């Protein structure tokens, strides 16, 4: 018997003319690991919310069709009633943590379900051990890092042993290490507990390797339903925005796209395409632009918190005019703090920062910049024109798409093109973006002809725009070099193409060019 049955389900949010889901029919078997793939606005989150009962009970709107979980009809039961069967984890861990300590957080859903005191205590301990958060049990939730918070939120999701877990981009705020750990953990729980997993994710290369099935969505309709290998074959032809870098590389080399680095390498090896000569790839030191005055000079900067740790430790950095720098590192490495110092939002406790002009900073959430009623009030007309936003100048900023809001926030911080800043800093600009919007942003940044410093967790995005990559760790620079030097080595801060090709290339296009030059048979 199927665990989740969705039949002819359509849904429109209240006040919206467009259907968020249209005639969706799916059956998910117990213990299946299903990835929902689609660009932003394709209906992934709405589908997850329909399974958890938030649609329609919490969001309202117009519904037709039926969703049932373990024979419980979601139209007749509230999300609270479904909580014993279905658990949900959303993007932002901060708004999902509702209790003061980790122990209370894990116990909370169980107490809501009326479990006995002893059963709650046992489940809390077991869940904490399974997720490796037993050391955090008596910590205050206010003291946890983003990665720890998301792990605790996952613990609260799984503590009640639900049969279905819905996850909406749970790794979007995590660094590559924590993101991979979370996906691995999900697979283990899926196998150990026969947990049914429904996972919506933009970084498909991260999760297709562990998935049993992929459901592709477009404009609220199911456009693909099959195994990950078939999905990649379909995506390369029908939905390139959903094709992983590895799939594009393999397809370009005339091979059948397969999920996961190991299988991709095997396929390449069988075709004799893994003997690439790294000398062909143009490995080089970053351009130093000797003789040109730096656009930003960070000189032995420390940021020390009173009664707390040092976030930046004796950090020095010079950015030359026109350089495009990707700043990478784990959560808490000091990336955001460094950008805030560069923009003058923070003062170093030691050291100095010099720049010949203004430093513009775009923080993580573009919505924080949007405070007016009309787009035209937010930024000067030439700035709107530069980012192709003239046609929406009379709309409310919050009615724009995610990509348009990002461009508007860029127009705001850059200001009038006649008075450009010396440096533009962006803090995690691709969070929650699909590949198409990321590509557009990378093209836009490259066209700005300005010194860029972008803090990002996304090596694929860094490979697209950067000509220098700096890796931070514990407030210090631990690596600084060309993208090929930094993003080609290692496992976590490396692109999928680099991992498949032993670091010989970063992007599928570079990889294919390399293969062509080696005359690898297609």
């Amino acid at each position, binding site marked *: 018997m199927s665990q989740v049955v969705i039949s002819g389900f359509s849904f429109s949010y209240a006040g919206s003319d467009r259907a968020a889901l249209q005639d969706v029919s799916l059956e998910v078997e117990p213990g299946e690991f299903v990835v929902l793939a689609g660009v932003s606005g394709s209906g992934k989150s709405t589908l997850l919310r329909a399974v*958890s*009962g*938030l649609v329609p*009970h*919490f969001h309202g709107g117009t519904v037709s069709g039926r969703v049932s979980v373990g024979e419980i009809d979601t139209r007749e039961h*509230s999300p*609270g009633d479904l*909580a*014993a069967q*279905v*658990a949900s984890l*959303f993007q932002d861990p*901060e*708004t*999902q*943590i*509702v*209790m*003061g*300590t980790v*122990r*209370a957080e*894990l*116990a909370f*859903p169980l*107490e*809501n*379900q*009326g*479990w*006995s*005191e*002893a059963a*709650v*205590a046992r489940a*809390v301990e077991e869940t904490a051990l399974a997720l490796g958060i037993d050391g955090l049990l*008596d910590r*205050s939730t*206010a003291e946890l890092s983003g990665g720890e918070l998301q792990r605790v939120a996952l613990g*609260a999701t799984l503590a*009640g042993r639900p049969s279905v877990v819905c996850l909406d981009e749970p790794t979007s705020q995590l660094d590559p290490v924590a993101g991979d750990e979370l996906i691995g953990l999900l697979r283990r729980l899926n196998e150990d507990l026969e947990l049914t997993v429904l996972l919506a994710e933009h970084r498909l290369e991260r999760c297709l390797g562990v998935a049993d099935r992929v459901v592709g969505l477009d404009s609220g309709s199911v456009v693909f339903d099959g195994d990950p290998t078939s999905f990649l074959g379909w995506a390369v032809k029908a939905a390139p925005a959903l094709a992983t870098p590895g799939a594009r590389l393999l397809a370009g080399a005339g091979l059948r796209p397969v999920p996961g680095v190991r299988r991709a390498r095997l396929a390449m090896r069988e075709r004799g395409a893994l003997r690439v000569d790294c000398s062909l790839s143009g490995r080089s030191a970053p351009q130093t632009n000797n003789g040109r005055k730096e656009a930003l000079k960070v000189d032995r900067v420390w940021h020390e918190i009173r009664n707390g740790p040092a976030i930046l430790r004796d950090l020095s950095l010079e950015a030359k005019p026109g350089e495009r720098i990707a700043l990478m590192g784990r959560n808490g490495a000091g990336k955001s703090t460094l950008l*805030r110092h560069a*923009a003058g*939002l923070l003062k170093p406790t030691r050291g100095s920062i010099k720049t010949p002009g*203004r430093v*513009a*900073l775009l*923080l993580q959430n573009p*919505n*924080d*910049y*949007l*405070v007016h*009623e009309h787009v035209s009030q937010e930024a000067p007309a030439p700035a709107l024109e530069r980012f192709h936003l003239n046609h929406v100048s009379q709309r409310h900023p919050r009615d724009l798409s995610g990509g348009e809001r990002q461009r508007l926030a860029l127009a*705001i*911080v850059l*200001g*009038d093109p006649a*008075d450009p*800043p010396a440096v533009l800093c962006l803090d995690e600009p691709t969070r929650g973006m699909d590949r198409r919007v990321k590509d557009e942003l990378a093209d836009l940044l490259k066209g700005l002809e300005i010194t860029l410093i972008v803090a990002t967790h996304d090596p694929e995005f860094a490979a697209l725009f950067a000509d220098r990559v700096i890796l931070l760790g514990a407030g210090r620079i631990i690596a600084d070099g060309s993208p090929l030097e930094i993003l080609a080595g290692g496992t976590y801060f490396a692109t999928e193409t680099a991992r498949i090709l032993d670091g010989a290339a970063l992007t599928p296009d570079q990889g294919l060019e390399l293969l062509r030059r080696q005359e690898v048979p297609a």
Partner: protein
Amino acid sequence: MTYRRRVSPLHAARAVAGIAWCAGLGVAALLESNPIVLGGVIVAILAGGAAARAGRELRRALWLAIPLAMTVALINALVTRNGLTVIWRFGNLPVLGQTDVTLEATAYGGILGLRAAALVLCGVLYSVCVDPDDVLRLLRRWSFRSALTATVATRMLPVLLRDSTRLAEAQRCRPGPPPGRVALMRATTAGVLDRALDVAAALEVRGYGASRSREAGRPAGGGRRGRPWSRHDFGFLASGLAVVVLAVVGRVSGLAGFTAYPSLHLNAGAGTLSLTAGLVACALMPFADRRGIEP
């Protein structure tokens, strides 16, 4: 200004005792009009806060409480026509009309301001010293809606503090003049509503309110809520009750009398001073016992 477990007798007490103590002082501030007694209540709150290691938060709260008290006093002085002793004649002002400021209205405005300041400080002390998780469990047994409101409000506070910091930083990143206050207020309000929805959705999917059985209110086990009532629980509960009883006695007996209109009359005798000293002593007594206050 959010709860964090500190090493203090008040933090060691269970939520019901903490609530009783804070509420007792709040009730005393509402019942008493004598400025000496009100001053005593404020002293008790500040001293209690310092003993509970919440002095820093209370100092920050004073930045809100003092301007609030002054504003209340000023408004009362300007809008109240009662009192015999005119100290300032403004003449005929727009909106307010004939405005004569009296000594009595000014003094009574000061009393109202002191009362408002005491209530603000009580609220801050409650949010810093009483475990919201305990409050949630306590309320959930009797009133789901109250508990839900309390939970969302409590959980929203740190989220909104982070949001407001981010919003302020974003506005500092704008070149040129900053946006107007109205625009910022509108954006903040919209953000609050979005965040409240996120928190409420998280509560829904965790099954909040799905089960209202008695079991649901019980603790996870292993925590201090499962222990028998401690000396601190009894101490703060008794202290809160004693403060209320003293305030009621003072009010009913007229021991600490104060009338503002038509002319000022302040009882500053031994009775008033005894009542004030009794209130402060009752409020601070539970802090003397520092045994077993570690988490």
